[in-house]
């Protein structure tokens, strides 16, 4: 009995040693991990060929980048495009924080950047309003903040804001529908939105509704998903149950669109056509093949994060955007939202993100 006891304690001491070893190994992995990451990506488009003196090497710029969890392809493409910049610009020291949907943790990440006194922070907040206080703190500490995609609710919280054109996206989708259905005043139009609590979703819906109103149409059914495949499948399944006859669907996002198309196939419905959003590779290939319900999509660039980082670098190195006459980096950059149909899909396929 007693011998067994000392044997047990030796075993548990070994276990403690194992734990220590495991933690040590994991932390060593932490040192080597970031080197591997840079080599692993082939996803995301290669950045357009850089030109001009702005790309000449300048002083080293330390930029802290934080984005939400990459639970859908568009968000993953944002972070991958940012990582790709590391190879192009040797004067760039990128600190990429882990993707998280927990605002508490994302605030903590920005706090860490402030403590480290980085030269600039590029932030795609999970929720713009929730991250505004910490962004204000960063600006007050003298660190310029570049706000990407999901806007803060205070103009003083960021030096530069890089957005897609959410209202314009809705308008483009609405105008396309007007083109196709304008002569049918009773057309049943459904909308599958993204995360409803985000102002950008509200903007897209507003643009859509306004454009439809111009030709006398309106949205008959609206559901909301969360940009993820599962939520898209769920929302679409509910929608198809609720509306036995649909003429057209606008789905805000092609990532959740994978789930939406799956639900449509499962239900065996095809009396309508669908317009997507964001512009994923899968969606464009569907449009090209022409045998599904997906007929068009509206681009919402996944390059915004990388654009933000490039602008941050210009800001810190005190350079200007070379194609403009103005010497200061712009306050707001809003990227364009073109409509992609079978006619022009070949032009956009190369720069599309993987879902």
């Amino acid at each position, binding site marked *: 009995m007693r011998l067994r006891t000392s044997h*047990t304690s030796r075993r548990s001491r070994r276990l403690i040693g194992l734990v220590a070893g495991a*933690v040590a190994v994991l932390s060593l992995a*932490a040192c080597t*991990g*970031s080197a591997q990451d840079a080599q692993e990506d082939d996803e995301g488009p290669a950045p357009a060929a850089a030109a001009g003196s702005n790309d000449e090497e300048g002083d080293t710029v330390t930029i802290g980048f934080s984005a939400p969890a990459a639970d859908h392809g568009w968000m993953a493409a944002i972070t991958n495009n940012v990582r790709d910049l590391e190879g192009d610009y040797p004067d760039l020291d990128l600190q990429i924080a882990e993707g998280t949907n927990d605002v*508490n943790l994302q605030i903590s990440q920005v706090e860490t950047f*402030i*403590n480290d006194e980085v030269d600039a922070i590029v932030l795609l907040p999970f929720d713009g309003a*929730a991250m505004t206080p910490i962004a204000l703190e960063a600006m007050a500490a003298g660190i310029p903040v570049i706000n990407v995609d999901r806007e803060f609710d205070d103009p003083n919280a960021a030096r530069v804001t890089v957005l897609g054109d959410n209202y314009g996206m809705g308008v483009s989708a609405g105008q396309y529908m007007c083109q196709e259905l304008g002569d049918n005043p009773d057309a049943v139009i459904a909308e599958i939105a993204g995360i409803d609590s985000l102002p950008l979703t509200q903007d897209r819906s507003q643009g859509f509704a306004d454009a439809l109103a111009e030709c006398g149409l309106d949205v008959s059914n609206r559901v909301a998903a969360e940009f993820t495949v599962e939520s898209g499948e769920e929302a679409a399944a509910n929608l198809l149950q609720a509306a036995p006859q649909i003429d057209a669907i606008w789905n805000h996002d092609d990532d959740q669109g994978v789930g939406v198309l799956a639900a449509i196939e499962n239900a065996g419905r095809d009396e309508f056509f669908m317009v997507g959003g964001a512009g994923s590779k899968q969606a464009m290939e569907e449009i090209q093949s022409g045998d599904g319900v997906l007929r068009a999509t509206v681009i919402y660039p996944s390059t915004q994060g990388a654009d933000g980082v490039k602008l941050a670098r210009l800001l810190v190195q005190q350079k200007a955007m070379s194609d403009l006459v103005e010497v200061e980096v712009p306050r707001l950059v809003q990227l364009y939202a073109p409509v992609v149909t079978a006619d022009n899909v070949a032009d956009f396929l190369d720069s599309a993100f993987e879902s």
Partner: protein
Amino acid sequence: MTEHRTNADTSAVENPVAPSPGSVAVERAAAADADRQSRSQSIMSGSVGRNLGLVVALVLICAAGVITTGDRFASVDNVLTILRLASTIGVVSIGMTFVITGGGFDLSVGAILALSSVWATTFATQNMAEDTHWLIMVFAALAVGAACGVVNGVLIAYGKVVPFITTLAMLAAARGLAEIISERRTQIVSVDGFRDAFSSDVLGVPLLVIIFLLVAAAGWVLLNRTTFGRRTLAVGGNPEAARLAGINVNRHTVMLYVLVGLCCGLAALMLVSRTTTGSATHGLYYELDAIAAVVIGGTLLSGGRGTIVGTVFGVLIFATLSNVFTLNNQDTSTQAVAKGLIIVVAVLLQQRLARRATAT
């Protein structure tokens, strides 16, 4: 000589074969060794031993942080960052410790937090607060938390519905209600008094951290030095015996769930002040983090034994781990694996220590 014969006698009882001098020497050595073992065992199975493992783990993670990032980790600012990160989930975990010690379980803490944050920041509440005092918002959050706790407690104690199912239902219902009330929008805090009050520092330490430390201290006193705490341990250890001993088990259970509900309400206020928003998306998966912290802290999932100090260590371990990963630019996946490993190893170690403590 006498000792030798005693040993020989006992060994004769256990083992009829007459011991040779060599084996006797081995036995004496084993006896001495066992004496030493039992002495260190009594230390190890005491509170020092239980928490020693946690302290070692925390020190290891801090060491990893210092090794990989030097004084970026070891600065006062970074320590405050870790504490701020730990504060909100810490308050929830303290409440969860009580529930788990009492033999229960609460999966709905994150959802209750979201509902509290939404209710405290609705247009109506904020209007009322503008007219009177920002304490209205505090009251709203705490009241909502307590109300959800009452519902949980009554269903579990009097309705005899298993805690897992009850709190699972509350998880879904509370978040759904939060989405309905907020209309799935983020609600922004416009009452300046509230923002100013909660974002102040006390002697350079953020108010959020002070609140966490106060709640932890109060929790420790409540669990270890009051009859409420004794009753909680009794109810968790053996509810039938507790009932026979005269404790109103049902009422006590309800009080435990109200307590964790209040903690959720308080945590909601802390999160609202940190983000100046109330939202139905706050507190996602907080229940898992809270349970993980409580479990690795040494509180038994089956109830009957609880430790606030352990929970605080558990919360700090996860927060520090998160911070070290952030400083090293690691992604969520690696950290999630590490978290899982830590939980499993911690529970295995605890079970081993518990088995040894009961074996002797």
